[in-house]
């Protein structure tokens, strides 16, 4: 990875290619096909592989801090794939520009790799909250003897851009040990009236309100804020599968009760980048019971193995020590300004 930004080398090559074509924030985007052709010519990176990485950088639900702004169809969180690179365009995000500046030595290093982690590419380093990492580095710069627990407290738990809930042995993770993290969608018991209001707010022309909203007081369960690596289309299929009857149910009623979902209806109401499902509990099923069961469905909850390269406080201190003779406060300010820019906030809110 790039020593001064922590961004992967292939990712950096893509950022360089975009910058070389002046596809910068506020400027014009460039065709992805041209970027891929340049990468193939210049460094021999095969187009299919490079496009996969470029897509990861552009999909707003993957990275806490997007490095690229993708224009066109970069796929959905379900099954629809990104369009061919012929039909998509990209330009650098503000933070992508800061990463390049750090790599070129124009500014001091920035902890973008530490913030973004690499779980989006099936790595084991989870993403961390950008402002918290910056704050922790600033605090250690001011007070080098800041204790480990205080640094860990400032950084806080891993944070995924989709807003999913994180569970697991966070203390082990902070200590640099392997930790199995559970990423859970938000599963909320509400009523049909709230669903109707949410659909109406999205105001999609031609989008019909779900039929069951006629009984507005009826309890329903809303699933949203999915884990970033869950396929939202598959979640709907999984819930449907668990609601089906199987021949073995008659012989194993206890297992059938454990695995079956008392659902009478599931609706995918996702629209405009807002992914959410509504489930109607079967008659006589307390909504809270169904909520607990839904949280066990793969995709509503997923589990990933994580580990930081070293204990979190050591990681922060080592990073500072490696770059202590440079203007770290200046580069952190540049990163903060980039994060606060309109383009970056728009990209980070797109999820």
């Amino acid at each position, binding site marked *: 990875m790039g020593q001064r930004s922590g961004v992967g080398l292939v990712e950096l090559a893509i950022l360089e290619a975009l910058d070389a074509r002046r596809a910068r924030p506020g400027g014009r985007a460039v065709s992805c096909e041209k970027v891929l052709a340049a990468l193939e010519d210049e460094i021999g990176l095969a187009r299919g592989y490079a496009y996969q990485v470029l897509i990861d950088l552009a999909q707003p639900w993957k990275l806490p801090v997007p490095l690229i702004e993708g224009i066109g169809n970069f796929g959905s969180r379900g099954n629809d794939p990104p369009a061919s690179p012929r039909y998509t365009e990209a330009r650098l995000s503000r933070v992508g520009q800061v990463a390049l500046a750090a790599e070129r030595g124009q500014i001091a290093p920035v902890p973008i790799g530490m913030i973004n982690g690499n779980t989006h590419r099936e790595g084991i380093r989870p993403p961390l909250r950008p402002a918290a990492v910056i704050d922790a580095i600033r605090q250690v710069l001011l007070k080098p003897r800041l204790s480990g627990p205080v640094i860990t407290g400032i950084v806080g738990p891993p944070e995924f851009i989709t807003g999913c809930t994180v569970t697991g*042995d966070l203390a082990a993770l902070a200590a640099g040990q392997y930790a*199995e993290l*559970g990423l859970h969608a938000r599963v909320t018991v509400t009523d049909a009236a709230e669903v109707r209001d949410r659909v109406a707010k999205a105001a999609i022309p031609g989008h019909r309100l779900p039929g069951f909203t006629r009984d507005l007081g009826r309890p329903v369960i809303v699933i949203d804020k999915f884990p970033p690596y869950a396929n939202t289309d598959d979640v709907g299929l999984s819930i449907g599968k668990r609601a089906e009857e199987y021949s073995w149910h008659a012989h194993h009623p206890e*297992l059938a009760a454990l695995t079956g979902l008392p659902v009478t209806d599931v609706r995918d109401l996702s629209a405009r980048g807002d992914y959410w499902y509504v489930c109607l509990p079967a008659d006589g099923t307390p909504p809270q019971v169904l*909520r607990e069961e839904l949280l066990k469905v793969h995709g509503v909850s997923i589990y990933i193995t994580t580990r930081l390269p070293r204990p979190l406080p050591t990681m922060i201190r080592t990073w500072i020590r490696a770059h202590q003779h440079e203007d770290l406060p200046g580069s952190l300010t540049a990163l903060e300004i980039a994060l606060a820019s309109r383009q970056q906030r728009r990209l980070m809110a797109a999820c």
Partner: protein
Amino acid sequence: VPSVNAAAKVPAVSANAPADGEPALTGRGFPAVVLAAAVLAAERVSGVLVGSAALWLRAEPVAVGDVDVVIEPGEANLRRLHEALAGLAVRPGAVPALHRLREISIATVFSSYGRVDCMLERGRRDWEWLRPGAGYVPVADVRVLVASAADAWALRSRFRKR
């Protein structure tokens, strides 16, 4: 009686779910993916559960990521496996055809419980070695054939560093 994780004996499993609107919790609950092994057993697929799920059922302190089942070789069992996977998989179309199951080393399907790896080649080679050490462990009202902890650790150490 094989030793079993205490939670496995509890019929009403809990996913240790975060409460409504709760931002983050620590600790994990019962691994729902273990139920996929029970479903395969309920579908009368003959196989030995290995990997992290087996170790968890043997009360070993491991996190369960997926389900690995060594499948007993034999035409009738492969047919049952094919049908069971079609019922289990989120995308039945992605289940390998029966003739492919006779050739491939591992069939992987994604189910509503999580990832299920059916180890076919290992079954063809190691079934006779693995079966004697395995024992039945109850998961709900299904008896799941689970490798001994020693065999599961031995297989795991062959494929994983940790």
